[in-house]
């Protein structure tokens, strides 16, 4: 056999090998988490808040963290959508085609997307001190919102961009304003927006470094915006650093819960973009 044929085969083998390695990591991770944590999973885990002595192995659950995470995620996704939809509409409908401001917005949100969450956490902490807030649900929501705005802008922009120009031209031909054409365009890109929301949801619920500074941690469920809130990733992190076996087991169980939530959100995002886009032109 020629030497280049051998080379071809060697590299093809290496490629298939690395593809298998990379695609199996997901299964490895999910399998490890499930096999370790499934045994400690109980109804108490998701229905009770920590009782006294929870962190030395006594009864209770992590309902506080689940609820706190959901509060922060819902609040920040809502706020983030309020800010990012106008931005996307502006750069796609109001700004001229290929205007500098549109490119600049895309570039800056790409860059902000790459900024690690710990930096957002530190920045959120600075804002918090500046505004005189304490670690609270509100500060957590604001920080996470800042973090997910770039994700939302980029993801929504991707779908709004490919809506055919004919659509807005038709609106203009009927005497519509740009605002009215924006409404039509948005209606057309609802599947993409749903996917974007779910993606940012997944990112917000899994992030720990961002809320570490700002949302604090507590054993009770927050009843107002000024109270600190626990989050699921931080709850896993704190329980895992405990030397007591039972507490560590609960951390694994909490990891299973988080895995299930994240997988559901991500798969929902996939199917949403597939199914909702059926009525697209």
């Amino acid at each position, binding site marked *: 056999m020629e030497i280049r044929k051998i*080379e071809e085969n060697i590299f093809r083998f290496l490629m298939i090998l690395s593809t298998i390695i990379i695609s199996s990591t997901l299964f490895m991770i999910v399998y*490890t988490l499930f096999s370790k944590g499934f045994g400690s999973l109980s109804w108490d885990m998701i229905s009770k808040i920590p009782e006294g002595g929870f962190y030395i192995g006594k009864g209770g659950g992590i309902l506080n963290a689940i609820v706190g995470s959901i509060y922060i995620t819902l609040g920040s996704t809502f706020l983030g959508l309020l800010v990012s939809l106008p931005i996307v509409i502006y750069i796609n409908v109001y700004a001229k085609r290929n205007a500098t401001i549109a490119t600049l917005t895309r*570039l800056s949100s790409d860059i902000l997307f790459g900024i690690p969450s*710990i*930096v957002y956490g530190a920045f959120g902490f600075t804002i918090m001190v500046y505004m005189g807030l304490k670690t609270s649900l509100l500060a957590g929501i604001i920080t996470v919102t800042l973090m997910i705005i770039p994700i939302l802008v980029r993801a929504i922009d991707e779908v709004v961009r490919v809506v055919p120009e004919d659509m807005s031209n038709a609106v203009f031909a009927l005497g519509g304003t740009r605002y009215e054409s924006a409404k039509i365009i948005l209606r057309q890109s609802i599947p993409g927006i749903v996917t974007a929301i779910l993606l940012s949801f997944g990112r917000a619920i899994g992030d720990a470094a961002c809320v570490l500074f700002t949302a604090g941690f507590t054993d009770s469920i927050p009843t107002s915006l000024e109270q600190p809130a626990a989050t699921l990733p931080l709850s896993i992190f704190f329980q895992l650093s405990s030397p007591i076996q039972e507490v560590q087991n609960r951390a694994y169980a909490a990891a299973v819960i988080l895995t299930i939530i994240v997988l559901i959100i991500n798969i929902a995002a996939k199917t949403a973009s597939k199914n909702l886009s059926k009525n697209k032109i």
Partner: protein
Amino acid sequence: MPTSTNTIRLRSLNKKSTQKQLLKVMRSFQKFCRVAFSPTVKNKRLLKDRFVNKTFLAFTLLSISMVVLIAIGLFYKSIPLLDSTSLSNLLLSSEWKPFKEAFGFYSFIVGTLWVTAISIIIALPLSLLTGIYLSEYAHVRVRKLVLPLIELLSGIPPVLYGVWGVLVIVPLIQDRIAPHFVEFTTGYSVLAGGVVLAIMIFPLIISIIIEVFDNIPQDLRNASLSLGATQWQTIKKVVLRKSFDGIIAAVVLAISRAFGETIAVLMVCGNLAQIPQTVFDSGYPLPALIANNYGEMMSIPMYDSALMFAALLLFVIIFLFNTISRVILYRIEKRNT
């Protein structure tokens, strides 16, 4: 007499003209009011459009200035530290004694570099090969099967990677790998951090590489293949060469992602403020430093300033890396449209 009648006439005329003028003014005012506040549909819509234009522009400008705002906020907080210690001292000294107000970031910077370098060394060949396979060799069905898996991988929260690292990678290093090389290690090491980070950056590198490869015109490949080159030769001599800048951009982006990753690294790296001598030593990357010490931050003077400086350092480096790679990627995109 006639003069007087004349004046009267003039006066009345004057009066009439002023009345007319007044009417005119009033009418135009009415018209203005109709334009501004009238319920007639058309103008209200125009006003709405204009209002939306201005507010949305404000939002957009705000989002662009976010980058600057973060930099200013962090810089403002780290001024006290920068005033008391020189920049070179901060970056090159490894003396870390918060109580004596000695803040040298050298060992943390080296820790970050170790972890990042290990993760890139592991991740780049694997994800490059996978990217080539998926875009050049694999059947569409394989691609449709594997790509969603990789996307799911990118959706897994860092803390779960950390848990997995503690459960799998750390014992693996402690029991199986390290004993061949060093006498003792806990397994919590920069190698563990690098492996976990490598898995976290796979999806990022692969998705960019596939995008870059897809942008290369098929004609170039066909030309090479028609000259009798094998597929691998075509990839090596044409595709890889043509997509060199895109691969660089992907690597730079991956570096900056690895640089800032916090929780996962915090859980597996050991967090000892020392300069690692081998890959089996513990390290203490910058993000882990920030996350680990937020509790004591407010109780020791200058400590919060030092941590904010660490965040600023991360921000500046990652901002530069991100900008470079994004500009490269934008250029590639522009070249192909």
